[in-house]
């Protein structure tokens, strides 16, 4: 007798929408609530990012939300730093203390506050707070994540990958994925890969490791790490020699025809030839005369050499491009050894790219108007698309490599066309975006806000944040000669620089959601020393005060003096803003909110509420009204609705105006959050068809984007194949201008500030003996758990609780190694012991592991014998934060010389069999974690709902 079962049980008392926070993808989710508890989370079908799907992390959100590692109340350190000895204090005491520390700094020297915010999704608020405080020392985690990508893209075509743009998944005919990409844009890429493969579109993955997306690629190219730029340049070489590039596209949308002065040794060498109005010049083949390069009535020469009226020579930028990449240095057979990619493969991929771009042209019968007002009946596209992220970014040659990828895309005519790579509004921006960083010496003053934001985009040496001796004004040395085009700051250098007093000491280090004593720092042992070192004369910590906010007992908590406990993502308001890092689609801008779907059961407060409160207590301009009372007494939700960055422009773009009828610009609407909630906690503004492509040169789009404040000008955005900004730095290095690098930096600036992208070996590879350290060591990101938050998750850690070191099977045999052997991984800083696993799908010169699985004993509410702590390991311990000393004793950070991007993937190691054991090395002193609930021995989550049912 078959039992009768209820197949239509009640599923929830209520279903509330909000936005996921298990990674930076920020999908729309629906949270099923029963008896006030979370019963289930699924994806919101209406949401433009995930369209209903959800990933392995998002589906484990319940365990994140209920983690025993959640902090429960503000903590004040009572033991030595790193001891984990705290006492619980009230919020009143915590905020009074923070206010007194910060107030003293603001009254005396605001730069003595270093405020860095890690995986912050509210940088529009946190950056503004820093600016109003008056410290230049602000950044989020971009400098150690992907600033090479952002900077290279924004200085080249006004966009970038991920939040800035995406492939035209629907129409593309060829897709190349560069490097590890399982972290950013995770669900959109997964969904798209499924559709591309089902549509028969070839997917090529270039990555030393074949996991994840690479596993389903049609072609996996297991490149040697750090040589992607050579591969790209060889593809460009092959496309040029075979004349498979889109010259018409170049003449229309790029600076290919702008004339570059060739005047070696002179102050104007390599700058654009300009007319009296400052407009760049081109050679008009029609009239046989020089003309404004921006004129539409010319037949611009892309090649040749011309003599300017004062006798100087000039050549079109494209002539320089062609000269460089036609060079046999970039011929496929020349790059084969370095990259490990056979010349025949390079040539075949080039042929496939050309076939997709030129033989599979996509035509849409959509009329549009170009920047000059000319009407077109159709939108025609070259359906080749690409995505790249951390694998390209995390090398010291990442900026130029990323520029090379964009150059390849542009030469194929595939930016923002049907089937190509598309901008997501508010991108494209001007090149570079017209926001300059502030914090020059005269701009940092007691009791005074900065005149602008701490972060931005510089256009020449005159914009650097240095004093008249060339000394950086920022603690992380961003926008100095060390990292001129930093854009996102160098969070990875803050602790080291602050402790060494280089360029100066700070008084308070204030951080949010950044595990800087563990997996987010290079050279963890040294950083732990910096956090605990004392000045022998005063017996005071070299970094005197550390305030830290986190929701969980991460490794960093024990190194704070004052801990401000944050909520989980289901307990808070948040704003995914167009002013910050929106969730736009290529077809239109989108923003979103988080709403609290459950109330905290602990004495915790959302960090953004706390920051607004501190701002008011410090009476920062903008945070108090004329009477000195808090301007946003309702906390972050009050700010989200009522803050205006410019008249009519606030954190959320939709339902503005008193009646909620305006988009983009409009007065604050007190019902705005209700409208977002009614719509599923997001708003997606789909553009009309005629604005969806060629946004950089589309009259209707540009006018609209200017109107709502995305761009300051509706001039077309001209792709900068040749970067004059880079050349300005090179000229300074060659002795021109009033602002020049110190002699220690001249050669470096001259070498790397090449106005055209090029490939060079990553710094660590160049500096170290290849026979002593023959292998590359990199990390990949497990899709189900790719940063440290995952390890407290009782479900996710059942999938991965230990990371192993993966090694090419053949290489392992050569080294006499077998599966599960323990090995020493030795780098120039020291050694780490780990257990290995053999794998065919790994480049023969490479070993790798999963990122951020390992945990320090005593943290994250894990038992001290948890595999994460006993067997897991970090490569971070081997990655130097500083490069070896140069002549003169100067040590650069281990970063890209243009942007300061942390060069995580430059690490070189050797592998030797270790004695048998059952623990990884090094092991650090276990941290104690008081004031948390005891983790349960067993979970029966869901039992409460079963019992609630009849």
């Amino acid at each position, binding site marked *: 007798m078959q*039992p009768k*079962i209820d*197949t*239509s049980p009640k*599923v929830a008392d209520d279903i509330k929408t909000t936005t996921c926070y298990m990674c930076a993808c920020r999908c729309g989710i629906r949270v099923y609530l*029963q008896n006030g508890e979370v*019963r*289930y*989370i699924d*994806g919101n079908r209406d949401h433009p990012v995930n369209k*209903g*799907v959800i*990933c392995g*992390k998002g589906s484990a959100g319940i365990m994140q939300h209920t983690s025993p590692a959640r902090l429960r109340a503000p903590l004040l350190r009572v033991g030595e730093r790193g001891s984990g000895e705290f006492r619980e204090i009230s919020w009143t005491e915590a905020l009074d203390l923070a206010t007194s520390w910060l107030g003293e700094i603001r009254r005396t020297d605001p730069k003595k506050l270093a405020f860095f915010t890690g995986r912050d999704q509210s940088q529009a608020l946190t950056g503004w707070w820093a600016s109003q405080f008056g410290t230049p020392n602000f950044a989020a985690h971009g400098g150690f994540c992907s600033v090479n990508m952002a900077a290279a893209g924004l200085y080249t075509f006004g966009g970038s990958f991920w939040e800035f743009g995406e492939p035209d998944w629907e129409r593309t005919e060829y897709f190349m994925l560069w490097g590890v990409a399982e972290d950013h844009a995770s669900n959109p890429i*997964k*969904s798209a*890969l*499924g*559709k591309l*493969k089902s549509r028969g579109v070839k997917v090529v993955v270039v990555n030393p490791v074949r*996991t994840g997306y690479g*596993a*389903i690629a*049609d*072609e*996996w190219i297991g490149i040697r790490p750090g040589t992607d730029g050579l591969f790209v340049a060889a593809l460009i070489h092959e*496309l040029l*020699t*075979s*004349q*498979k590039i889109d*010259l*018409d596209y170049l003449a229309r949308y790029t600076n290919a025809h702008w004339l570059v002065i060739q005047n070696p040794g002179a102050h104007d060498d390599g700058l654009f030839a300009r007319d009296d109005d400052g407009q760049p010049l081109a050679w008009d083949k029609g009239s046989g005369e020089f003309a404004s390069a921006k*004129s539409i009535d010319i*037949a611009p020469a*892309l*090649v040749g050499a011309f003599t300017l009226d004062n006798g100087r020579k000039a050549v079109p930028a494209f002539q320089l491009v*062609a000269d460089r990449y*036609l060079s*046999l240095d970039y011929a496929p057979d020349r790059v084969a050894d370095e990259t490990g990619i056979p010349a025949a*493969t390079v*040539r*075949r991929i080039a042929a496939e790219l050309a*076939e997709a771009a030129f033989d599979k042209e996509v035509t849409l019968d959509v009329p549009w108007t170009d920047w000059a007002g000319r009407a077109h009946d159709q939108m025609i596209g070259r359906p080749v698309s690409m995505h790249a992220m951390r694998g390209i970014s995390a090398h010291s040659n990442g900026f130029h490599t990323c520029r090379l990828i964009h150059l390849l895309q542009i030469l194929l005519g595939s930016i923002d066309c049907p089937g190509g790579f598309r901008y997501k509004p508010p991108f494209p921006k001007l090149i570079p975006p017209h926001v300059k960083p502030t914090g020059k010496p005269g701009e940092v003053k007691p009791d005074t806000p900065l005149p602008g934001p701490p972060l931005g985009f510089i256009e020449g040496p005159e914009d650097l944040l240095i004093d008249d001796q060339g000394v950086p004004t920022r603690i992380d040395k961003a926008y100095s000669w060390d990292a001129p085009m930093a854009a996102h700051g160098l969070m990875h250098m803050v602790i080291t620089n602050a402790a060494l007093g280089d360029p100066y000491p700070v008084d308070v280090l204030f951080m949010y959601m950044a595990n800087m004593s563990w997996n987010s720092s290079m050279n963890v042992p040294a950083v732990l020393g910096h956090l605990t070192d004392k000045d022998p004369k005063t017996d005071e910590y070299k970094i005197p005060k550390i305030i830290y906010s986190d929701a969980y007992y991460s490794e960093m908590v024990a190194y704070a003096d004052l801990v401000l406990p944050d909520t989980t993502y289901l307990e808070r308001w948040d704003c995914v803003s167009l002013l910050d890092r929106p969730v736009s689609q290529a077809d239109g801008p989108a923003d979103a909110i988080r709403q609290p779907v459950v109330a905290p059961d602990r004495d915790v407060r959302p960090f953004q509420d706390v920051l607004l409160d501190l701002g008011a207590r410090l009476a920062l301009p903008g945070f108090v009204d004329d009477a000195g009372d808090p301007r946003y007494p309702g906390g972050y939700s009050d700010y989200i609705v009522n803050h205006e960055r410019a008249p009519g422009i606030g954190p959320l773009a939709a339902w503005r105006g008193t009646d909620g009828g305006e988009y983009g610009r409009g007065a604050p609407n007190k019902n705005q959050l209700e409208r977002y909630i009614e719509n599923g906690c997001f708003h997606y503004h789909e553009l009309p068809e005629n604005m969806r492509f060629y946004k950089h040169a589309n009259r209707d789009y540009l006018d609209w984007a200017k109107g709502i404040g995305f761009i300051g000008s509706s001039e077309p955005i001209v792709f900068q194949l040749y970067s004059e900004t880079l050349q300005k730095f090179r000229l300074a290095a060659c002795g021109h201008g009033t602002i020049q690098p110190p002699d220690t930096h001249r050669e470096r600036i001259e070498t790397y500030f090449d106005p055209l992208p090029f490939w060079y070996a990553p710094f660590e590879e160049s500096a170290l003996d290849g026979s002593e350290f023959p292998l590359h060591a990199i990390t990949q990101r497990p899709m189900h758990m790719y940063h440290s938050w995952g390890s407290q998750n*009782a*479900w996710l*850690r*059942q999938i991965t609780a230990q990371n192993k070191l993966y090694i090419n099977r*053949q290489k392992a045999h050569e080294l006499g190694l077998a599966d599960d052997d323990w090995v020493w991984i030795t780098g120039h800083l020291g050694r780490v012991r780990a257990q290995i696993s053999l794998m065919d*799908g790994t480049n023969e010169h490479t070993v790798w592991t999963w990122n951020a699985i390992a945990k320090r004993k005593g943290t994250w509410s894990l*038992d001290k014998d*948890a595999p994460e702590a*006993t067997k897991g390991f970090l490569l971070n311990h081997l990655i130097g934060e500083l490069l070896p000393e140069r002549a003169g004793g100067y040590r650069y950070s281990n970063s890209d010389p243009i942007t300061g991007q942390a060069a995580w993937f430059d690490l070189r190691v050797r592998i030797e069999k270790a004695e048998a054991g059952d623990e990884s090395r090094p092991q650090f002193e276990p941290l104690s974690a008081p004031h948390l609930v005891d983790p*349960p021995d*067993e*979970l*029966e989550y*869901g039992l409460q*709902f*079963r019992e609630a049912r009849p």
Partner: protein
Amino acid sequence: MTTLPQTTEKKLGLVIDLDICVGCQACVTSCKEWNTSGYSAPLSDQDPYGSDPHGAWLNRVHGYEIGDGETSLTLHFPRSCLHCEAPDCVTVCPTGASYKRAEDGIVLVDPDTCIGCKLCSWACPYGAREYDYAQGVMKKCTLCVDRIYNENLDEEDRVPACVRACPTGARAFGDLGDPDSAVSKSVNDRGGFDLLADFGYKPVNKYLPPRPRRDSNNGANTPFLESTAPGANGAQSATDRFFAWADRMLAR
């Protein structure tokens, strides 16, 4: 011994596309999350923050390599109950707690009559049954029997949680007894196969094999582009030809 229905009205099951499964674990945790509060509630976890965390999961994904060297593949393989037409896991059940539903073919365990003897897990060659150590009973994929007919869910959500979650679209749900269903057609078109068919349990769930890769090992042979070699003995080089080609009248 428990008897099986002679026939079932439908053969509900999953079709899993190994060509596009990236191993992201979305189906795994989404299944756990639904079912720990669903028909099988709870799916307990032992030592969840300790040295050996383990629990009852109704769906798991394994990743491994197949083949050797250059022709090897990395494969992600989702594994759950296949709702076999002739399952020994049901017939070995001494209490009748394991049964196959006559209306749709779903194999279920009645937690009220399961005695936790584990005979079924020994009988299943697919390792699809999961013992719940806290509850002392056997758990298994229910094909989300409390979702697929659930009138409290939107109609489009009446699919198993794993199918609802899957970002790449690698999982499909339907009636494999109906030759005209979308799932049957995809099995037909793509050469869908039975897991361990020789065992004779006649699994309802099917797997779609990876499509042939189009790399150099599998005949990708787009001809190289022309004019790639430098000219010899005064003949115009590719570089010269390139500049001649590029020196043309272009419009803005």
